[in-house]
């Protein structure tokens, strides 16, 4: 191997001891988890919004954003359950570019994983302590989930990871909803296979241990659009796509059929400002079909304080340094509109 073993990192147990959860925060997470479980098990018909920046590039802006979300959540709590996105690690198509707070706690400095691990735990912890939100993050490196397992309420497995065995097996060992995205090529069978794996029990190696998972009945689909072989984006949020997914679920025998629809990525062709329109179309399909209404549990929205995106050294507070997001005003309006339409 040509790895330079730079330094041994503290274990998840140690890092959790360094930045422990207060009893109050633990209670908030339990309440959030229960609210989500009720929705996925069909005991509640509240609508989920997994919403927030494409990447959590700086703690101050992310915390301000989440604090604002808290107010909105309190106003729509009869209809909507908000799970803020704090995405601390980003998959990159060629591996180049900003890889998220985990790698670069300071986006303009060299990677520092030790600092990064502390930074992402502190950020998730602060969000939970300050606002009562236990948030969503992407499961990019399955073993790193241990550092955050007590603060997250939702995990997404990305389009590039969904075919990976380790992601599927790790998902089967979590007690929180895991959204598994359709792959970039759009093959829904790949996603359905991932769900089958995630809902079953497995024996495997995790963090140097032989472990047995119980299977995760809360593993569900995320439709995020896809790319044609010609390269252009194609959406899969339309009525027909949702009916097709419903049929796939019917044949599969999977527990708790559910989908979260991603309104950005290939569904909007990254035209971030189309997200409110796409959201309304999905709500419209839900009104037309009882099956779709039962299947669609919520939306995933990319949103931040400022519209659009910038280069990592752009310096605009609250603007995405990865994919473009809708800004705060449009976000707030969009959430209230969704609440009205439900």
């Amino acid at each position, binding site marked *: 191997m040509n790895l330079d073993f730079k330094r041994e990192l*503290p274990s998840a147990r*140690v890092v959790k001891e*360094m*930045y422990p959860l207060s009893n109050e925060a633990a209670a908030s997470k339990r309440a959030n988890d229960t609210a989500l479980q009720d929705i996925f098990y069909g005991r509640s018909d509240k609508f989920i919004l997994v919403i927030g920046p494409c990447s959590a590039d700086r703690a101050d802006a992310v915390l301000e954003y989440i604090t604002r979300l808290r107010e909105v959540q309190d106003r729509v709590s009869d209809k909507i359950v908000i799970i803020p996105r704090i995405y601390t690690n980003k998959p990159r198509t060629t591996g180049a570019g900003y890889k998220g707070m985990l790698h670069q706690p300071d986006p303009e400095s060299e990677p*520092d994983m*030790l*600092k990064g691990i*502390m930074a992402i735990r*502190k950020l998730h912890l602060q969000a939970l302590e300050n606002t009562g939100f236990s948030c969503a993050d992407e499961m990019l490196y399955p073993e790193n989930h241990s550092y955050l397992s007590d603060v997250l309420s939702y995990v997404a497995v990305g389009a590039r990871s969904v075919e990976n065995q380790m992601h599927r097996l790790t998902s089967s060992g979590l007690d929180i909803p895991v959204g598994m995205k359709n792959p970039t090529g759009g093959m829904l069978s790949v996603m359905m296979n991932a769900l089958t794996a995630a809902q079953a029990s497995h024996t495997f190696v995790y963090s140097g241990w032989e472990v047995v998972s119980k299977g995760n009945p809360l593993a569900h689909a995320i439709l995020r659009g896809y790319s044609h072989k010609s390269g252009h984006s194609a959406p899969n949020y339309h009525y027909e796509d949702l009916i097709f997914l419903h049929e796939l679920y019917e044949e599969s025998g999977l527990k708790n059929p559910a989908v979260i629809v991603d309104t950005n990525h290939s569904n909007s062709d990254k035209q971030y400002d189309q997200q409110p329109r796409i959201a309304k179309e999905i709500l419209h399909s839900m009104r037309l079909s009882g099956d779709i209404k039962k299947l669609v549990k919520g939306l995933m929205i990319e949103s931040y304080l400022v519209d659009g995106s910038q280069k990592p050294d752009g310096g605009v507070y609250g603007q995405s340094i990865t994919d473009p997001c809708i800004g705060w005003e449009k976000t707030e309006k969009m959430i209230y509109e969704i609440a009205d339409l439900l």
Partner: protein
Amino acid sequence: MDDLSRNREIIDSVDEEMARLFEKRMQAGAAIAQYKKEHGLPVKDRTREDALIEKNRKRIENAEYEAYYVSFLKGMIDISCRYQEKLLSGMKVAYSGVEGSFAHIAARTMFHEASLVCKNDFNQAYRSVELGECDCAVLPLENSYAGEVNAVMDLAFQGSLFVNQVIDLPVRHYLLGIPGSTREGIKTVISHPQALLQCSDYICSHGFTAQEFGNTALAARRVKELGDASLAAIASKETAGLMGLTILDDKIQDSGINTTRFAVFSGASEGAPSSAGKDEESFILVFTVKNEAGALAQTLNIIGSHGYNMRSLRSRPMKELLWNYYFFIEAEGNINSQNGQDMLKELSVICARLKLVGSYKTYRIEDNS
């Protein structure tokens, strides 16, 4: 009313107001003196004074008054310092070493109004503060003359005191003889072995015989007692004054100026960041690590990841446990920041024992020779 009377009335009312403000300022000064006593800090704080003058002069709108105002302010600061020194004159500062030793010089320069209390050893000086007999103790951190400086580290590890101030004292050697003696007549020099070593070129080139002595101040006393015009001591300039010896030669050391460092130990931790700039802040940590592979490396990784530059890392055996060691770190940076507090939080999990011995800025005693 004519102009003269009117303006005198203005001055009267301004003076009345200023008298009240003066009292208020002096009261604040007294409170600061009390704080400085508890924390073992010197009355004079050059950085703070400069910052104060810099900030206040900008408040003067009429440029013509500015120079007068600065001079007024300096006078005010001077009065305040004198008052504080008077209040601190009852302060008791412990040190270990004879009069004229570097510990004595450091203590006197820092606290020149305080009464200095000489103790037999570092331990007694340290305990005298813990027991409330003295307000602070000036003890060497790095000092080739003080012998076992390690003992001070052990006290820092085991004891309950904090360091809020470190003093850098430049050490310059002088050749001291009895009054009436001359350099040409000297045959033998006596001093602490380290001092002799640092002046070895000088001693060789003059053909002196060197004899080792317990410490530089005692060597000077010996020269005085024997009254031998062929005998000289190598010691500080201050020692010459104290012992009534004559300086026969200066700049006798082989290279440059050595610096010895003293820490002021007191019962209270300063906690809040001092007026010093961020870059000037340093801190001392002592800790033990769990007895497992890579435990020390993990600790150092964490310090590094918080961006603190370690100036020194020393290890010392723990007296109560054979083959167990504790570590003594000095690092640059402000520990009373969020970053510093996070680092302590992280370290407290992986260290078996962890203590912040102090955070301080360094007070450099100018070399006035």
